[in-house]
C-alpha cells in the first residue's frame, strides 16, 4: 500500500494550460497517475492531451469525480485555487509552489481542516507512491516500490536520498515532501501517523533540517512504544546561527533549532541518525532490519 496517493486518486490539475500543467499531464500521466480533469478559467471546453479543461473546480469535480487536486498556478494565486479545489470536494490538494506568503498557507490549511481535506506543501516537491502515481516533478528513475516510507522537508534532498535507497534496492511505499515553509499542509507528525497506519510501510526515513519543530514531532513519534523504526538525516550541521538557509523555516534561532540539539533528541528517542548523506543507506537498512 501507500499513503494518500495511488492510482485510485482522480486528479484535477488547477492551471492545466500553463507550462507546468501541460508537462505534468505528460509526465505524471505517463507514470500512471490518473489525471481526469484540468481547470483554466476562460479555456473551459478545450483539452490538454485529451484531458478535459473546465472553467472551475466545481464543474470539473462534478463532471469527472475528481477528488485530488494538483495546483500549478503562480504563488499569488495558489490560495484561491487551492481553496476552490477544497470547496469543490477535493480531499487531497498538493501545492508545490514556493514563494507563498505564509498567511495564504495558513488560510488554505484552515480551509482544508474545515472541509475534511488535506494539503501537501507548499514549497514541496509533492508526493509519489512509486510504481503507482506521482504528483509533482520527481525524476521517476530515482524511485521504486518497497517498504520504506520517506518524509522530506526538502525536494532535491528527497530525490538524492530516494535514488540512494533505490540503488541499494530499498523501495519506498510513498515519498512525501512536506515542504520547507513554517506552516505545512501536512506536518512531519501527520505524515508519521499516516505511515504508522500503512501496513506495507515497515520503516520510516525522515529527511530534516535545522530550525522548526518538525524534528521534535519525529522524536515524539519514535519514542512511542509501538512506533515503527525511524531513520533520519538532518542537514545543516555547517549552517551558521541566525541565517535563513533558503527555506523560511531553516534557521537556527534558538538552541533547540541546531543540528546538534536535533540529532541528540532524535538519537535519544531511538531514531537511527545518519551521520551524513553517505551514511543514509546504512541507517535505512538498520531501520528495516529493526522492523523485521
Amino acid at each position: 500500500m501507500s499513503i494518500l496517493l495511488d492510482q485510485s486518486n482522480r486528479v484535477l490539475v488547477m492551471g492545466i494550460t500553463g507550462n507546468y500543467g501541460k508537462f505534468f499531464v505528460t509526465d505524471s500521466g505517463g507514470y500512471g497517475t490518473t489525471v481526469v480533469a484540468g481547470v483554466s478559467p476562460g479555456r473551459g471546453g478545450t483539452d490538454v492531451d485529451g484531458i478535459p479543461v473546465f472553467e472551475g473546480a466545481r464543474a470539473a469535480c462534478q463532471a469527472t469525480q475528481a477528488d485530488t487536486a494538483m495546483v500549478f498556478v503562480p504563488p499569488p494565486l495558489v490560495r484561491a485555487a487551492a481553496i476552490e479545489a477544497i470547496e469543490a470536494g477535493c480531499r487531497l490538494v498538493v501545492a508545490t509552489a514556493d514563494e507563498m506568503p505564509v498567511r495564504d498557507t495558513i488560510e488554505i490549511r484552515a480551509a482544508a481542516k474545515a472541509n475534511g481535506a488535506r494539503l501537501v506543501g507548499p514549497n514541496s516537491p509533492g508526493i509519489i507512491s512509486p510504481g503507482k502515481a506521482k504528483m509533482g516533478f520527481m525524476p521517476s528513475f530515482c524511485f521504486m516500490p518497497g517498504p520504506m516510507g520517506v518524509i522530506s522537508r526538502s525536494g532535491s534532498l528527497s530525490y538524492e536520498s530516494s535514488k540512494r535507497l533505490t540503488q541499494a534496492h530499498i523501495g519506498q511505499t510513498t515519498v512525501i515532501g512536506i515542504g520547507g515553509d513554517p506552516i505545512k499542509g501536512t506536518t512531519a507528525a501527520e505524515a508519521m501517523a499516516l505511515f504508522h497506519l500503512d501496513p506495507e510501510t515497515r520503516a520510516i526515513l525522515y529527511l530534516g533540517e535545522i530550525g522548526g519543530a518538525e524534528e521534535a514531532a519525529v522524536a515524539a513519534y519514535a519514542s512511542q512504544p509501538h512506533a515503527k523504526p525511524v531513520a533520519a538525516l538532518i542537514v545543516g550541521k555547517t549552517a551558521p546561527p541566525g541565517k535563513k538557509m533558503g527555506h523560511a523555516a531553516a534557521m537556527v534561532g534558538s538552541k533547540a533549532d541546531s543540528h546538534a540539539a536535533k540529532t541528540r533528541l532524535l538519537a535519544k528517542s531511538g531514531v537511527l541518525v545518519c551521520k551524513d548523506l553517505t551514511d543514509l543507506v546504512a541507517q535505512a537498512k538498520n531501520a528495516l532490519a529493526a522492523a523485521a
Partner: protein
Amino acid sequence: MMILEHEAKALLRSVGVAVPQGSLIKSPTRLPKIKSYPIALKAQVRSGGRGKLGGVIRVNNATALKAGARKLFNTTFGDEKPEVLLADPWLPFERELYLSVTIDGTAEGYVVLYSPKGGVDVESGTPPARYPIGPASQFRAQGFRAVLEKVEKDFQLREKLIFLAQRLVETAAARDCNTIEINPLVQLKDGSLMALDAKIVYDDWAHYRNSDILDQQKAERARADKYLRASLEMGHMYVKLDGDIALISGGAGMTMGAMDMIKAAGGKPACFLDASPGPTSTRGYKPAFQMLDADPSIKVILVSVFGGGTHMNRVASAMKENMAMRKSKKPVVFRLDGTYVDQVPAIFETFGAKNHPNLESAVKEAIKLARSA
C-alpha cells in the same frame, strides 16, 4: 526580513499601539533639539543582543547626546554599523512585560507569546505562555484570557493584553508580518501599555501586496555589493561562510546536505547558494559565477544540482554558456543528477567538462582542488 526598531514602532503606532514619541538621528553632526532629558539613544540595527553590546545609552544632556551619537555611529553590532539612531524619551514605568505574535507550525498559524517578565533576559527565564490561534480570525478573547490567568495576576492588565494581542494578530495577518515582538512592553504608572522596543519580521514573499516589504527588499539590495545584488535580483538565496569551496546548488536541503558533506570530508564550505529560481537559464547562473569568481577567499566552485522539474540537459547547456563567458580560472566541479541526466555527458563533452556520478566523488575532487590551489 527584519525591519528596524523605529520602522517597527511606526507600524505599531499606525495600528493604534502606544509607542514613545521619539526622533530619528541620521548623522552625528545633525542632532535634533531634545525638549526633555533623559533620553534613550538607540542604535538602529537588525542584529540581536544590541542592549548587551552597548547599543542603548541613557543620555542626560545635549553634550552627552553628541558623544553618545558619535560612539554609536562608530560601533559595529554583529556585522552592521547603524545608519540611524532613535532618540526616545526615557520613560519611567512600573513593569516590563513581553508580548509577541509569531508563526508557529504546531499552532497551524499564529501564536501569541506572553511573559510577565520582559526585558533583555527574557530568553533565559521561564518560557513564555503560549496561546495558539491558527488563522488570525480565530483569535478569541476568552482563549487568551484562559492562558493569561495562569501567569498574570493583574486582571486589569490581562484585559489590556488581550485587546493589544488581538490587534497585533490582526496586524500580522493584514501586513504580512511573520513576527511582531514587543520587548519590553511596559506598563506605565497610569496602567496603560507602551511598546518601548519592537521587532517586526516581514514575510518576504508577500512583497507584491505590501509596498513596505517591497521597499525593504529594494533597500536590502541597495545595501549589498554589486555582485550580491545581481544574485539577489535573480532570487538566489545566499549565505556567506568562511571556507574556500563555494557551492552552487538547488534546493535548501540538498545545498545544506552538500555543505555538510564537504565539511565531513575535510573541506571548508564557502557559502550556501541555492540557485533554484531560474534554474535552467544561462542568465540564472551568471550572477552566481560572477559573485563567486570575484571573491578572493574562494578557491573552487562546486555545482551540485539534483533536479525534478529542473531538467538537467538545460542546466548542462547553461553551464556550458557560463563557462564560456567566465574570465576566472577558478576550477569548477560538476555533479548534475535528476530528470534528463542521461543527456548531460554529451553536452559536457563539447566543452571538456566531467559530470561526477555522485556527490561523494564531486566533493572529493573539490577538496583536492582547493588544497592544491
